[in-house]
């Protein structure tokens, strides 16, 4: 499962990150050494071992479907880089 430079750029794109051309080689080196450390896992037989997602094997608790939050729109919009008329503003998506 050796990776190449194109794989690195593709992974970056999936994460919406950009790797500059002059960073690709170093990024590939780091990535490969981390993956080779991670691949130590593959030497262990885990055939009948179920995955553990939560350390207490807790399942997601649900709360009552009741309104608990107050309308805090103005305060929350103050945090946004750009807003207009009570909405978040982003670059045009559809012409």
């Amino acid at each position, binding site marked *: 499962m050796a990776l190449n430079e194109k794989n690195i750029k593709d*992974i970056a794109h*999936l*994460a919406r990150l950009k790797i500059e051309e002059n960073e690709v080689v170093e990024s590939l080196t780091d990535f490969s050494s*981390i993956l080779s450390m991670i691949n130590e896992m593959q030497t262990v037989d885990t055939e009948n071992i*179920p995955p*553990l997602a939560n350390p207490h094997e807790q399942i997601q608790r649900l709360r009552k479907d009741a309104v608990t939050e107050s309308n805090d729109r103005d305060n929350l919009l103050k945090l946004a880089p750009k807003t207009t008329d009570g909405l978040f503003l982003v670059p045009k998506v559809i012409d």
Partner: protein
Amino acid sequence: MIEKTVVELASALSTGSVSSVELTRAFIDRITTIDTQLNAYITVDEQEALKQAKEADEARARGAHSPFLGVPIAHKDLFCTQGTKTTCGSKMLQNFVSPYDATVVARLKDSGAVTLGKTNCDEFAMGSSNENSFFGPAYNPWGKNRVPGGSSGGSASAVAADLCAIATGTDTGGSIRQPASFCGVTGLKPTYGRVSRWGMVAYASSLDVGGPLAKTAHDAAVMLNAIAGHDPKDSTSVAVSTEDYTQSLDAPLTNLRIGLPRQYFSQDLDPRVAAIIQETARNLENLGATLVDIDLEKSTLSLPAYYVIAPAEASTNLSRYDGVRYGYRCEDPLDLEDMYTRSRTEGFGNEVKRRIMIGTYALSAGYYDAYYKKAQRIRRLIKQDFSKAFENVDAILSPTSPFTAFELGAKKDPVSMYLEDIYTLGVNLAGIPGISIPAGFINGLPIGAQLVASDFREGLLLNIAHQYQQNSDWHKQKPSMPMGV
């Protein structure tokens, strides 16, 4: 007065020998003179701190009492604080001011604590040296040009240098315990779910937990009393009842069995570190505990399992930083895609990007079973390893970190940095509690001993740590300040 513990300060405040305003002023003066060297704080909110101190003094005059009333503390800059910036050590949140307080922050406020400011940390808690902070590294007061550890490096440095009485930290793979070891303070990682994660900015949600960095185990118990307990706002916080963690501190250690994992004391371990931990074990034996050699056969697998699970969860959690609702947005985006990509590329530092990419890869189509599912299966093996050990012992003793504080820039490749946390990662994967206590010095630099117990036995860990501290003075050593950095 600033060198005193929370317990001592609370007593001085209640007898009226000092006011909270005087105390807060003294800490701020200390920060002003010393923190130019340590960079332990990202934000100090002097006006807000003095206002809270005045309110605490007024409340006391009206007859109020609470464990933290008027005691100046600091929060890792990963906890949301209403009205004061919460940066997570990132350019992404450089100007972010949370509209609410984290539950940990709110509970400490309710207990009367005065917040001095927000401490430095590795960006989004990803790192073991505090070098990954957008606001520059924090320094260790114990040695010139030494890292304080990470990711809660600023909190550890601030407690060690008396820049606050106690501080909060967060621990995903060792981020409270390793800096506690490096800076000679006491750091407690509670059981997963024991402390609410609400308002604690997420790194890896099935591993993250908040806890204290303190001058003593007794102080850590006082803080745990304030912050522990179920929170309806965090669906992963557990509904297991809490206890008064100061009640069991004085229990004798007789009848306790303490395990020493053979795998941790291999030939690879620095003999000076091994000698210090063996000495700690003998001291605990002298206090009545029985030492038992144990096996944690799967312990070496915690490193690869952690570096799949934590980055996978991080890649998901950090997808929220898209430049739309809050946080950094790039200048003049060409279109939506360009805005997402450039905001994230410009807003995140290298280690954060690296972990997001590892996590993205591990979760991507075709690799999910081989990496993420596999790591979760190994996580179960690691949990089983600890459960088996706890059938025979009450607690496990080991080094916290294989090394003392290293020099800035000493660890260049990521895997050598990840190896810093070899003794702490498994504890997070298992979800169990752990504590690091000062256990000695190597060439003038502190080294910590880690004690680990089964789920919800923080009381036992604090008991052992307190008894050890009643019979040792490593935790009372102070770095000579100011020093040249």
